[in-house]
């Protein structure tokens, strides 16, 4: 069964450093998402991406964040200058077509745990 993969599973970085979190969505999916879950809190939407551009973003997704689909298979989240409060589990998700309701389901990767020291 196809699945979303994410690398690395755990990333430790120093405050102020740049990090890139990588995701490989399911191959025929067209919509891509990043969510994060700070320890003990609920999962929060960060950004959605469609047709090579951001379609929606939350207020969390400020200028320090960017997303890219560099080669048609990978989907990356970059944090330019990490802060302590960026420590969280980051989930990538992908979804097929928008139009048919049965395709609403988003498939999640296993997550990358980011620890900022």
């Amino acid at each position, binding site marked *: 069964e196809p699945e979303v993969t994410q690398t690395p599973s755990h990333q430790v970085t120093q405050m102020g450093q740049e990090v890139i979190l990588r995701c490989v969505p399911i191959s025929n999916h067209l919509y891509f998402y990043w969510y994060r879950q700070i320890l003990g809190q609920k*999962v929060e939407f960060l950004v*959605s991406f469609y047709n090579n551009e951001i379609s929606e973003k939350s207020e969390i997704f400020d200028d320090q964040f960017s997303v890219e689909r560099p080669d048609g298979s990978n989907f990356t989240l970059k944090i330019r200058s990490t802060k302590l409060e960026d420590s969280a589990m980051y989930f990538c998700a992908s979804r097929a077509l928008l139009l048919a*309701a049965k395709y609403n389901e988003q498939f999640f990767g296993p997550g990358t745990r980011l620890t900022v020291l």
Partner: protein
Amino acid sequence: AQSVTQLDSHVSVSEGTPVLLRCNYSSSYSPSLFWYVQHPNKGLQLLLKYTSAATLVKGINGFEAEFKKSETSFHLTKPSAHMSDAAEYFCVVSDLGTSYGKLTFGQGTILTVHP
């Protein structure tokens, strides 16, 4: 704007007894509703989904949920809990009328199953 409220942060049951995890939603348009489960140190797994077909939805591992528009509820149930059901459960809404399918998560309910 869409939102989800999970009415219990923790639910504790004995193995073999019924499970009820409560969820109320708010949505401007006809919503799609989901229940996801997260086992410790694991990712999010879809349990079941409601997408405007049958109001009683059956999912994996014996779970089911009923969509009640009049009550704006989507409670998750299981007739008989198993030890392996211990996990955190998230009620989730997707409001396609106003977004590209952004998911809004509830706060989560931690289910504990006692022997």
